[in-house]
């Protein structure tokens, strides 16, 4: 049901009944290896190309989620997913393997929450019993498309971010009120495209921060919730610069959120001594951390109510070379545990 200007309330509270998360070698060395169900030792993953390795990550994550939920591909009505590669071929090719009716979506790094919001909406309106949704990215595949060849010796500035190799998928289904073991999706806010004139592709956090803040503010306004209603507000991949900008913008608007209740997936995934500059980015940043790490923490009772704000930079290598600024977007989904 529409509430406010651009938000949905899901009265039936669709549940996330299972998740599957896969990752690469860099994620294994990071802070959250336990968030991943499958971790690969190298970026090729025994595939002939990075793009095919990318496809494999998606297939594996979906298979793990299905196995955990005790479901087969035939039980699933739709898969709603996307990635960063041109024409989202890794996701489409994975959908070919999986044989599940498919919605391909592109929201850059905001794809995870775009997919989750759409899935919850469809399930809430009885358009499906089970939907698989998620997002994926592959460091080397993204690097060669958006930047330089992986072995090129260019120096990245400290504002640059590291694309996550991984895929995070969740199965969304109906819930009953007495089911307390599953995290439930209660509302979502679809963001609008915000462009405050940043054109440096090596500073995407700085470009995306205003979009995240805009969506958080709209979410609170639309739903009538307060920032204190949430145990945690987590952004997708703002990185160090974007995070501090967003925090400052929120405080400037009188939303005094304490630092421990405002986190960024891009800052949770890697160790400080890994060469990731300002933090993680990529469609898998929010997908792996939320589905692999934060939902586990919710089930463990650390958080009861979180707002996941996945942020996306809607650029292409072409628009960067044509000196265009970077339009950005953020989608927010509220996930809660019934007590």
């Amino acid at each position, binding site marked *: 049901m529409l509430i406010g200007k651009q938000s949905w309330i899901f009265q039936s509270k669709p549940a996330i009944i299972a998740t599957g998360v896969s990752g690469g070698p860099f994620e294994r060395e990071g802070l959250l290896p336990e968030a991943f169900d499958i971790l690969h030792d190298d970026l090729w993953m025994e595939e*002939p*190309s*990075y*793009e095919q390795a990318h496809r494999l990550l998606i297939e594996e994550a979906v298979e793990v989620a299905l196995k955990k939920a005790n479901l087969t591909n035939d039980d699933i009505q739709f898969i709603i997913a996307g990635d960063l590669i041109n024409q989202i071929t890794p996701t489409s090719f994975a959908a070919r393997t999986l044989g599940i009716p498919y919605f391909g979506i592109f929201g850059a790094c905001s794809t995870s929450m775009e997919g989750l919001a759409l899935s919850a909406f469809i399930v809430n309106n009885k358009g499906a019993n089970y939907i698989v949704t998620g997002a994926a990215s592959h460091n080397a595949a993204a690097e*060669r498309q958006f930047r*330089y*060849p*992986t*072995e*090129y*010796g*260019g*120096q*990245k*500035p*400290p*504002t640059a971010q590291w694309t996550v190799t991984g895929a995070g998928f969740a199965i969304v289904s109906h819930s009953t009120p007495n089911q307390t073991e599953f995290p439930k999706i209660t509302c979502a806010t679809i963001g609008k495209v915000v*462009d*405050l*004139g*940043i054109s440096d592709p090596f*500073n995407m956090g*700085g470009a995306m*921060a*205003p979009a995240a803040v805009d969506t958080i503010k709209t979410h609170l306004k639309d739903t009538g919730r307060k920032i204190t209603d949430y145990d945690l507000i987590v952004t997708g991949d703002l990185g*160090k*610069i974007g995070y*501090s*900008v967003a925090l*400052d913008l929120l405080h400037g608007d009188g939303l005094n959120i304490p630092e421990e209740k405002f986190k960024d997936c891009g800052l949770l995934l890697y160790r400080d001594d890994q*060469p990731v500059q*300002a933090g993680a980015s990529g469609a898998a940043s929010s997908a792996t951390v939320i589905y692999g790490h934060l939902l586990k923490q919710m089930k463990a009772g650390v958080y009861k109510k979180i707002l996941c704000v996945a942020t996306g930079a809607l650029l292409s290598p072409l628009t960067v070379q044509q000196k265009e*600024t970077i339009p950005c977007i953020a989608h927010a989904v509220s996930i809660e545990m019934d007590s």
Partner: protein
Amino acid sequence: MGKSKKKKSKTPEQQQYAQFEQKHEIKRPVVRNCVVAFLVGGTICVIGQAISYFYIYFFNFTEQTAGNPTVATLIFLSMLLTGFGVYDRIGQFAGAGSAVPVTGFGNAVISASIEHRTEGFVLGVGGNMFKLAGSVILFGVFSAFVVALIKTLIMKWVGV
């Protein structure tokens, strides 16, 4: 249909945000980068000089002719380092220090070739090998032409 003039000016809101955002940016450590680039670039040149002497003393090369085998050897080394996945790490550490010498040119060529191997030898490797280095060749040749032109004109008119 005329070309629409692209407005370069930003809106006041965007200008305000740019200033605000700047304060949060982590600045490039320019002094550190310059010092490291100088040291690493210098080291690569010292190695090049040593290779050059090697060819002069052990083979029949003169100071004028030792240049070609020296460059070839350096590019070969840079290609090995690129193939083994080391050169991009040196690049992140050294910046211009490893990009400006001829080894950086070798790295730009070989990294693109390795990268596009998955698209086949002709359209992949062949078509993309000079993706990065192509502009170096174009503007290198063009600036050499301009310098040669200036030199020729000066010699003709001034008679130096």
